[in-house]
């Protein structure tokens, strides 16, 4: 308080505090003089507690660092090495050597790690006023994302209204292209907004974002939406295609060997044929007794439109008919790839023709007749 203060004092009040200390409050008389009276600005209890916590944590970190340093030098001396060049890796090696452990679980073995540094930034200023306008909700960044999205949906609605008022309909360019990108998963979204999310909050947020992305006017907000989307990884990687060769007659052919279960099939496809199929040198398609197996072999030809255009020469052995048919189908599909264009190849990939079928017979278990089947119950 300065000397001017005494002139403008109108009344003073005594307030007793829980500490037993007393405070005096003043009320000023006029506006013109008010600025002359000053109060001491205080740091809020919340900020004080935060500063305290940070200080405590820093002290703890310093102590932990000192302890680690002592231990490191001590280990270096025991191992007879130079403490100045003794690194964290050397520490681990020394501990493994000095304290050998027969425990299999790695986390149960003795270890000595350098202290991790961690600092949480303050969420409010010196007067205790939080920085974020949704601080009191407890999930400020999640709710802010929802808030921002809804705000943009409202804007998009207004834009749509404008277009409708003019008597037009929204065109395709007004909507954002959603094919080349997809939504980020929960973990990535959490990293983007820098906050942990509950499952329910995540679902709600994604629903809101989805409704903005599907809006006919979403193109105006693509820069906002791309923060929460990622490019689609192309499924079809660079395929290794079997090469087209020429035989003695001058006909080009492709050869491929593939397997399914324990059956192995080698297929030779000859171009400019009539659709002749030879299996193991002497049989035709009737080599397979059941219709399903025959269909399996014809399916890749039908899919690519190569029926009656190429000749097939299949050599197959091992396992039963369905496994042999599966192996033959896979080999046929692979042998067809160099004979068709890129788009058709992608379609074949999506249809699952070029994927290895990893299913195999389940092993037999002891005490069971097969993999699962029990022995017949005999009454004793």
């Amino acid at each position: 308080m300065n000397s001017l203060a005494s002139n403008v004092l109108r009344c003073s009040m005594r307030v007793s505090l829980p500490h037993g200390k007393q405070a005096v409050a003043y009320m000023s008389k006029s506006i013109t003089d008010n600025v002359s009276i000053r109060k001491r600005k205080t740091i809020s209890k919340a900020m004080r507690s935060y500063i305290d916590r940070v200080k405590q944590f820093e002290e703890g970190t310093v102590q932990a660092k000192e302890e680690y340093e002592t231990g490191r030098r001590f280990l270096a001396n025991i191992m007879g090495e130079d403490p100045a060049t003794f690194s964290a890796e050397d520490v681990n090696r020394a501990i493994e050597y000095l304290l050998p452990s027969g425990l299999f679980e790695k986390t149960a073995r003795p270890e000595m790690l350098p202290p991790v540094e961690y600092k949480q930034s303050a969420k409010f200023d010196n007067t205790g006023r939080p920085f974020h306008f949704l601080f009191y909700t407890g999930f400020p960044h999640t709710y802010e994302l929802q808030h921002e999205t809804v705000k943009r949906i409202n804007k998009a609605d207004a834009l749509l209204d404008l277009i409708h008022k003019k008597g037009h309909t929204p065109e395709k360019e007004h909507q954002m292209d959603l094919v080349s990108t997809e939504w980020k998963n929960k973990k990535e979204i959490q990293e983007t907004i820098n906050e942990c999310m509950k499952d329910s909050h995540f679902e709600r947020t994604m629903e809101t974002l989805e409704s903005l992305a599907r809006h006919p006017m979403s193109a105006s907000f693509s820069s906002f939406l791309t923060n929460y989307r990622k490019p689609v990884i192309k499924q079809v990687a660079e395929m290794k295609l079997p090469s087209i060769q020429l035989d003695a007659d001058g006909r080009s052919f492709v050869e491929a060997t593939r397997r399914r279960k324990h059956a192995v099939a080698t297929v030779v496809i000859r171009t400019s044929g009539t659709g002749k199929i030879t299996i193991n040198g002497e049989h035709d398609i009737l080599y397979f007794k059941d219709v399903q197996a025959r269909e399996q072999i014809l399916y890749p030809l039908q899919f690519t439109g190569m029926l009656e255009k190429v000749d097939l020469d299949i050599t197959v052995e091992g396992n039963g008919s369905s496994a042999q048919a599966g192996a033959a189908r896979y080999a046929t599909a692979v042998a067809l790839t160099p004979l068709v264009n890129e788009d058709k190849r992608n379609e074949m990939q999506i249809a699952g023709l070029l994927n290895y079928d990893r299913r195999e017979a389940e092993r037999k278990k002891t005490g069971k007749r097969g993999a699962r089947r029990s022995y017949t119950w005999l009454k004793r």
Partner: protein
Amino acid sequence: MAMPSTLFSFASRILSLRSTHATRMIHSVRGCFASAVETSTAAANEETSSFADTEGTVLQDIEVDDTLNHKDFFGVRKLCTPQLLFEHKVHYGHKATALDPGMKQFVYGIRSNQVIFDLDISNYHMQEALNIAAHIALRDGIILFVARLPHCANLIESTAKECGEFAHTRTWRMGTLTDIKSVQKMECRTPDLVIFPSTQSEFGKEHPAVHEAAKLNIPTIAIVDSNCCPDMITYPVPGNDDTPSAIQLYCDLFKEAIARGKKERVKRVALLEQEIATEEQQRQSKLSWKVVK
């Protein structure tokens, strides 16, 4: 009947809240000395604590008590008129069967089973509320907008963001105010004023924040509709709390009031800084004079 002392003090607090006029007096006076109390508490704390970084600096704050001598220091009372309230459909209440007994004093009449508010009364209460909001903004108080209105949530949050204050229009976790330390997992400052554009929660019950604010003696401004109870509210404003146009009006009015309070604060802080600078200059010149001597 014997009453535990703590319970008695709590009950008396609530009772004092109920009598709105008395509470208003308390809060207007509280504004004057709360700051002084804070100062002395901080001084007491400073003696015990040992912060190297905060000990040396003496921060200054503005003195604002003179503003209480004026009836309408910020001119916010002129913002609100019965005509304006009527245009924004504030006079519509709920069905007469749902009328809360506490709201009878604010009712003008009932027309085709619909409660109609007396807008002269509503206007008076709204002006009072705007005035107190501006005063609290001037004193750098934290103002929290709380409502559970899904169709107006975005509007209310935007309002809070635009006037640099806070909003909570989502699921209310129990103890958000009363048990703030464990809910936020740290020591936090509670709001100094809570504004309810609607006191109803999503299930047609009273919003839990009303009770939490009452328990902590945090002043509250609330728009109370004819089916809501005004007892726990410090500054109730009778009016329609469902119509978007009415909510828009409330948001605009409070935004303007808070903006005026903050503008005054900025002005005073600038003056204070200027004064401190000139004082410092004088001190420096005196020192240099001494050195020359």
